[in-house]
């Protein structure tokens, strides 16, 4: 393995002020999420509904996909099926060829990132213009997005200014976000007006009605889809939900979890092409049907790509999206990617402290940290684990299965950090790299709780 999370993260954290800034910025987004969630007394109930609707959908996926296809076709939409990323790219390429299309705009779609659509088309001499502001910025810089909701979150405004100066001729050194956004607006308006094909993602597809919903704040998906004579919407098949009324649950959860907004500015519901327009949907598998069969990991398919688990993750915040070397980074990416390529992504389930914060914020209640832990077992059994990790894991396994020993080991650990810090602050302990080990608490949470928890209760 050439590029591991640990090696890439080491590069990222070499710039300490930037790492701190990244950490704080994402934590700020996490706090906005909390505020939005606390504004609804039924928030936990909503998460439960979201989770149950998704569980039900996965348990009846065969029927829902057939129902969706039938209704979509009746609505005048052309439906395609792609077993993997390559098939997905070929289907789109074929549509482009058939219409002799030159000008393509694309709004945010993590699926097309997963399938490497842009690179595929580029190899065939076809250029795609990404229209989400963050995605356009990273596209100019020939970088992948580092976050599924905030693609350019790893960049400072000076970086964006320099990039726009080079590509759009904006004033050198003008770092004003308002000015830079306006420049992108003008530049991309031209692209929209001239576009012959708009590619969009899909947030939710409704089996009952054969339509799909696309959510953006910028309006870029709509500017493309309502302009171009051809619209292709690409979706992983797990985006399906049974009924239109279920959209209420998911639209209430999505933006609040993602950015703390009550809803995205635009939640656009597409059911039929406009007159003289051609509308396509590409339903993609790319490992999803396999994941569905893995009992321990199947509910990762419930994900609505809100990125709340990224923003809350102490490892993501302090290592950056590019360290995950995959299209979908963060905790959920570390569950999805080993399914796509276990060997190449064997490091990712280890890029976690297993603190469980991801699981606590996930709007559809995916047991993210437990799945990360389970992947470690699978990856070890398949022989893809470095020896140092293996020893640690065996210990961990032993500890977690024996609560009394675990408590004792905790006491020992706290004692060790206090009394003989060099034992843990050594080179074998990779967690110590670039950081001092924290001050150990004098007592464990359990000890503290036994003493104080009950008396503090009102």
């Amino acid at each position: 393995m050439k590029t591991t999370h640990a090696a890439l993260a080491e590069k990222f954290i070499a710039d300490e002020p930037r790492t701190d800034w990244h950490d704080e910025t994402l934590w700020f987004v996490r706090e906005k999420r909390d505020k939005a969630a606390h504004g609804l007394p039924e928030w936990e109930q909503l998460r439960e509904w979201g989770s149950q609707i998704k569980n039900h959908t996965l348990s009846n996926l065969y029927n829902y996909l057939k129902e969706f296809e039938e209704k979509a076709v009746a609505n005048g939409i052309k439906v395609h099926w792609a077993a993997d990323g390559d098939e997905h790219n070929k289907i789109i390429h074929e549509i482009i060829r058939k219409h002799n299309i030159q000008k393509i705009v694309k709004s945010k779609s993590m699926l097309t990132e997963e399938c490497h659509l842009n690179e595929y088309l580029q190899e065939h001499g076809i250029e795609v213009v990404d229209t989400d502001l963050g995605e356009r910025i990273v596209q100019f810089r020939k970088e992948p997005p580092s976050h599924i909701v905030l693609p350019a979150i790893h960049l400072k405004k000076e970086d964006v200014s320099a990039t726009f100066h080079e590509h759009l001729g904006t004033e050198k050194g003008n770092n004003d976000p308002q000015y830079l956004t306006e420049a992108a607006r003008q530049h991309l308006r031209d692209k929209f007006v001239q576009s012959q094909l708009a590619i969009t993602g899909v947030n939710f597809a409704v089996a009952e009605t054969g339509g799909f919903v696309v959510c953006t704040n910028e309006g870029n998906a709509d500017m493309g889809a309502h302009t171009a004579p051809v619209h292709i919407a690409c979706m992983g098949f797990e985006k399906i939900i049974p009924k239109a009324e279920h959209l209420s649950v998911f639209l209430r959860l999505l933006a609040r979890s993602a950015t703390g907004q009550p809803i995205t500015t635009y939640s656009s519901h597409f059911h039929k092409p406009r007159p003289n327009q051609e509308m396509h949907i590409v339903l993609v598998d790319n490992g999803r049907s396999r994941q569905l069969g893995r009992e321990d990991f199947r509910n990762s398919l419930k994900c609505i790509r809100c990125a709340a688990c990224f923003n809350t993750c102490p490892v993501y915040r302090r290592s950056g999206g590019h360290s995950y070397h995959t299209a979908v980074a963060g905790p959920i990416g570390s569950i999805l990617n080993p399914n796509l390529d276990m060997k190449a992504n064997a490091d990712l389930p280890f890029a976690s402290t297993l603190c469980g914060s991801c699981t606590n914020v996930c709007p559809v209640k995916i047991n993210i940290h437990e799945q990360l832990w389970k992947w470690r077992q699978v990856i070890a059994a398949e022989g893809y684990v470095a020896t140092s990790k293996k020893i640690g894991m065996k210990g961990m396994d032993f500890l977690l299965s024996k609560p009394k020993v675990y408590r004792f080991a905790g006491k020992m650990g706290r004692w060790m950090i206090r009394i003989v810090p060099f034992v843990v602050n050594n080179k074998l302990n990779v967690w110590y790299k670039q950081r001092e080990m924290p001050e150990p608490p004098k007592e464990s949470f359990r000890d503290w709780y036994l003493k104080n928890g009950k008396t503090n209760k009102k």
Partner: protein
Amino acid sequence: MSAREKILNTIAINQPELTALPLIDRNALIRYEDVYAQFKTVLESIGGKVELVQDITELKEQLIADKASGNFVVNTIAALGDVDDQVVSFTASELEKLEKAYIKGTVGVAENGAVWIYESQMVNRLLPFICQHLIVVIDKKDIVPTMHQAYDSIDVAKEGFGAFIAGPSKTADIEQSLVIGAHGARSATIYVIE
């Protein structure tokens, strides 16, 4: 075997045992004393403007003045005057200079400031997105507390397209600084008719 068969067959084998759909208990949902007040507060917190109007005819004068300004202004609301039906077939390059669009909405949502607009109300799907300034008119009685009641009162598949729109277009992609006016409307004003 086609990709379709391959995918569906694998799903049939791998999908877990059937579980039940939850019942969405409406009693569990948030209630607002004054849905209009909530709608206004939320929408203004996300960059929109909300004004209460006694009678829709009050807006007629404003429309006349807007049209007289020489800017490209489109009206799609019959109660305000002549409807600019011709825009139905306008292309993006023809709409590119659109300064303002007046559009009727079906339902407003108090919890998030969104307004549902059907394609027939937009006349042209591009209208509410490509205009520089968006004016939406809704009736006060059509404001509901949450998205659940909103979906009850619309039929998303009735027309080819429809959207919930909540305020002006925005982005925070540059260092998380909020900028209003990304690709869509730079401002959104919602007139609520008593």
